[in-house]
């Protein structure tokens, strides 16, 4: 029996080997990258947590803007523009009860709803809710249609009307896209009990009107407090189940 292979067979084997090697070279890195991107790692965002905030309006001082100033500095919202186009990730609102005349103030920001209307209406999915309840805008796929701003019941979103300079590396922002409070997600993701800038600033002044934490964790301070006191969700009739609650506010 002749052991020698014919030139045709040699060529066929060569082509087979080349095809396999080429295929592996092209596909393998893709599989590797995909598996890396899908891998669960320690500290991954999960629905076991839900970040939220409890704001005690009795402790919130009128005329105090420490929380809004801290937000401005933290996220670099420092552009000098007209008031009507200025970004407002958090704002102070002064209120008077029509019946009793009692006056008070409170900070207002994205309420990080469980069922956010902004993510429902966003055509591209740029507005999204993370598994841990934080509502964010993916600036890479936001087309700037502003439908989310029409849909937000809290007027919590701003549109960037002008070119920006000196953005903070941890807060991506860009002209022509929509933005809102992100609960200082860059701090939260660092772990170690880091809190949003507004909460930290409010604590430093001694007011302590803003309590932040995981509202699903039975050991967290916010969880215990929410069980202990009555709190109010804004526009509760819409059943959006916001992550931000107000203590001492009756609507």
């Amino acid at each position, binding site marked *: 029996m002749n052991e020698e292979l014919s030139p045709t067979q040699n060529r066929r084997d060569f082509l087979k080997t080349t095809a396999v090697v080429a295929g592996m070279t092209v596909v393998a890195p893709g599989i590797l990258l995909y598996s890396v991107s899908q891998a669960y790692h320690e500290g991954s965002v999960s629905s076991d947590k839900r970040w939220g905030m409890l704001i005690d309006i009795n402790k919130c001082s009128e005329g105090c803007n420490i929380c809004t100033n801290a937000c401005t500095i933290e996220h670099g919202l420092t552009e000098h523009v007209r008031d*009507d*186009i200025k970004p407002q990730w958090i704002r102070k609102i002064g209120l*008077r009860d029509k019946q009793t005349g009692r006056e008070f103030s409170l900070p207002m920001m994205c309420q990080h709803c469980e069922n956010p209307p902004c993510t429902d209406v966003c055509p591209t999915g740029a507005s999204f809710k993370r598994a841990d309840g934080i509502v964010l805008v993916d600036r890479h796929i936001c087309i700037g249609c502003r439908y989310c701003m029409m849909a937000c019941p809290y007027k919590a979103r701003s549109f960037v009307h002008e070119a920006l300079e000196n953005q903070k590396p941890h807060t991506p922002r860009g002209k022509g*896209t929509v933005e809102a409070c992100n609960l200082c997600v860059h701090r939260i993701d660092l772990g170690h009990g880091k809190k949003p800038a507004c909460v930290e600033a409010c604590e430093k002044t001694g007011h302590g009107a803003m309590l932040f934490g995981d509202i699903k964790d039975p050991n967290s301070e916010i969880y215990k407090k929410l069980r202990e006191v009555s709190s109010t969700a804004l526009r509760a009739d819409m059943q959006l189940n916001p992550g931000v609650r107000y203590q001492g506010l009756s*609507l």
Partner: protein
Amino acid sequence: MKNVNFCVIEGKSLGFYVGMAVLSFFILLGLFAAYNMEHHGHVITGMDNQIVWGMPHIFAIFLILAASGVLNVASISSVFRKVFYSPLARLSALLAITLLIGGLSVLLLDLGRPDRLLVAMTHYNFKSIFAWNIILYNGFVAICVLYLWFMMERRMQRYYPTVGLFAFIWRLILTTGTGSIFGFLIAREAYNAAIMAPLFIALSLSLGLAVFLIVLLIDCWGTHCSLGEGILHRPKTLLGVLIAGVFYFVLVYHLTHLYFTGRHGVEYFILAGGGIYTVLFWGGYLFLGTILPLLLLYHERFTHSRISIGLASLLTIIGGFCLLYVIIIGGQAYPLNIFPGKEIISSGFFDNATVHPYTPSGWEIMLGISGFAIAGFATMLALKLLPLMPRSLADADIDETFKD
């Protein structure tokens, strides 16, 4: 029904070239406005964080509504088998395509990031009615192209009624989608009503027919094509019915809001204390856009005049524009009621404003008008290249048995 001969328009007259030049000028103005809005940002417009949708959206939605409504004439001939309208079906389908392209161009160029068109076409959130509309609008253009082809291609004639029916159903869904952009907004009191969808359907029917009649009159005047009284009379009567239909839905919409105590504030704002919005509602929409055209169309003294028909169509368009302004801008100008029972005494974000002001900038108007110009340019070009207009629209050439 006689066999109708179709022809291209000659397109060599001074009027044609002047028309194309004027439309090109307005398209260039619109592109210049879009470039500036892109380069400087929306800071140069009258829109802000309170009034987020402005003049470009009114123009865009107007054109989109008119596009779906203008297909009426073709639908009546193929779906409802009124062959009398068949000679006009080609023009009707053409206008549906061109008006939609005009409207979508304005919508696209107003985006904060129009360069991300590809993102909008490849990333879909299927819970968003806006995302559905992107599919509906693109599909509508494709169906109308098919419809037009089947009308013109003898071999495809037998499928023509099927495509016509499909196009008719699609356009109803499309306008439902456009109305639902507002109907699905729970946050704002002026919207959040299912009646927005049928209201927009009725509005699209009347605006579409009004635009169609104006284009028909201009075209026949420009090309000296004879236009019979009969062929004008039937759509004219229909226009009156559609104007009344829109009024019915507007009436029910406001009656519903007036019934809900929680919405008295926004109703008072639109109907009585809203300044420009109140004026536009009563004067613009109701008087100019509803009562006057109905008088012109039905009153014995005016009903036979061609000028009356043209004027009534123009007034319907003006009225529709006013109504859209009141709905879109007025709905945003009325502040959100986040704290019921509380008076807002201070805010860093205009929560305490009794009304959010809005003055449209020249850029926005330039961009909006370019939508009409794009539609007009594309229509004139298509009429020159393709046999879409009947050689004659004299009654005797359309239907020997026709009696007015």
